């Protein structure tokens, strides 16, 4: 028994650099998805259970672009980003704004309802089949030592990190960011200082959800899309956001990499859906013993 274990460890060890690289790449994508969720939560104080479904929407728009217009996923970015942002704006006006001051229960139920609508509309239109969206870059592989990385994954991760940093700069160093933060920190005080809070909420929601319109075409070349992709990402984003402290930008970034690495290493060691159990266990332990997350406090 012992010998077998040692053997398997010896088998696994050489794969570790590859696994860490995979986890890091995955983590960057998780980070940008979680940053969007944490931004909407941090500013609007609304927990969006439909967050991941907007990513699925972006992926399906990319798929439509690829099949109808024969667009490479990277080119369809110019369509997908504005469309997802537009849908986000309508969602804010129609569904989110009316419940912004309602009890938390009602807000959660509205976003749950939205998630049901989006997910099942996609199911009804596109069926449950998996679709791939190959790009000219899909086959390209970058080799660093013994580590093989898909070029598309590298681009997606680099872009994700860049967007996270860009959003951080926007919030920290621009007048718009200052107003968004004011609306987030104290709604009434911001209103009295002449900040158009409703507008800031709209912009924050559009950025938080719209960023998924940017991520979708970038991860499309090495991912499949199905209607349930969204709920998987929503759950992962929640785990990341709680890990990194709800509403905390840097926390979401760090949390994304942690969960990416945990999933990759867990997958290497256990395989299959035992992996999910580990992730959920971490999530539950954090919720119970450190609900304020790794960094604590709300800093936006």
């Amino acid at each position, binding site marked *: 028994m012992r010998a077998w274990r040692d053997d398997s460890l010896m088998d696994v060890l050489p794969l570790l650099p590859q696994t860490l690289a995979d986890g890091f790449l995955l983590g960057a994508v998780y980070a940008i998805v979680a940053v969007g969720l944490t931004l909407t939560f941090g500013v609007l104080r609304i*927990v969006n259970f439909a967050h991941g479904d907007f990513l699925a929407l972006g992926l399906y728009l990319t798929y439509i672009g690829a099949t109808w217009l024969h667009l490479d996923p990277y080119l369809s970015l110019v369509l997908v980003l504005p469309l997802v942002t537009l849908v986000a704006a309508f969602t804010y006006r129609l*569904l989110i704004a*009316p*419940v912004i001051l*309602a009890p*938390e*229960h*009602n807000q*959660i*139920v*509205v976003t*749950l*309802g*939205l*998630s*049901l*609508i989006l*997910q*099942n*509309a996609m*199911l*009804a239109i596109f*069926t*449950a089949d998996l679709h791939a969206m190959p790009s000219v870059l899909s086959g390209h592989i970058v080799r660093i030592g013994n580590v093989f990385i898909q070029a598309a994954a590298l681009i997606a991760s680099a872009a994700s990190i860049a967007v996270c940093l860009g959003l951080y700069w926007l919030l920290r160093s621009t007048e718009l960011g200052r107003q968004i933060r004011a609306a987030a920190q104290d709604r009434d005080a911001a209103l009295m200082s002449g900040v158009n809070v409703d507008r800031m909420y709209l912009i924050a929601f559009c950025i938080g959800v719209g960023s998924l319109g940017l991520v979708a075409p970038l991860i499309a070349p090495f991912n499949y899309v199905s*209607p349930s992709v969204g*709920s998987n990402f929503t*759950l992962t984003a*929640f*785990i990341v956001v*709680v890990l990194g402290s709800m509403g905390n930008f840097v926390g979401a970034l760090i949390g994304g990499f942690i969960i990416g690495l945990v999933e990759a290493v867990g997958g290497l060691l256990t395989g*299959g*859906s*035992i992996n*999910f*159990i580990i992730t*959920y*266990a971490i*999530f*539950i332990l954090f*919720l*119970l*013993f450190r*609900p304020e997350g790794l960094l604590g406090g709300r800093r936006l």
Partner: protein
Amino acid sequence: MKPMLLLGAVIALLAALAPFLSIYGQHIFVLVALYGAVALAWNILGGMAGQMSLGHALFVGAGAYLSTALYLKLGVSPWIGLVLAACLGGALGALMGYTVFRRKLSGVYFALVTLALAEMTLHIVSNVSALGAANGLAIPARPSLANLQFTSKLGYCYAALAVLTVAAIVIIVIHRTRLGYVFLAIRENERSAAALGIDVVQGKVIAAAISGALAALVGPIYANYVLFIDPESVFGITLSIDALLFSFVGGLGSLFGPLLGTVVLVPLTELLRGMLAGRLAGIHLIVYGVILVLVMRLAPRGLWGLLSDAIARRRA
């Protein structure tokens, strides 16, 4: 005793009605009663005590798997399984409530913990080969009262109605005793409740235990009705959301609003399914989503609220 008499009359009426329904009607009867019982159970914690759970499938699934596994592996009668399921559900509810509420988690954090617990259990059960892993467990059809299986759908109508009745009686008893006021006080304002000398944590733990026990009671009946359970069908998030949805649409916090929601939505689902005949999968869930959003916008107190407002206006 007036509510009890009214309840008795309604149950008797339903029981007398069941034999005259078509097979299809009886199927819907069973579904409404079972989903109604889960919604009523959910509402004890979610509506009456104000702690919104997104993981009530955990209790239903635990009950279904416990009684089915005991019956298949050890030959334990499903009747004993039914009792043990309620005990397990109560214990799980109390344990979950104790760990979560002692740490003052509420609102979205509570919702996320319950969601994660149910999902984690789903993945654990999916990996236990003794429980059939992801393939689930099939119960051989051996209709007899001892096996909690019936030759006709009518038997299941009465079994489901019995579970629903238990849930309704528990709710009326809670409402008429001190516990009802404790839950109400906790829901409306925890701090004031604590200032009045109410043990808030204890009150929520009791709500979770009762809620869990009643939800778990539905599991074995459901398992013996469809004769097959798998992790996705009894632990899946769909079931948890259904319980919440029926309660919100029917009227959160009202005693029997969740049942009203079930009575309206479950037949609607079946009707849509029949009309579309397998085409456009998921269309009923789109309808659910739209109804949910509309109810939140137009009638936050649900159908029960609309109904009682209408009655009040008629009287005025």
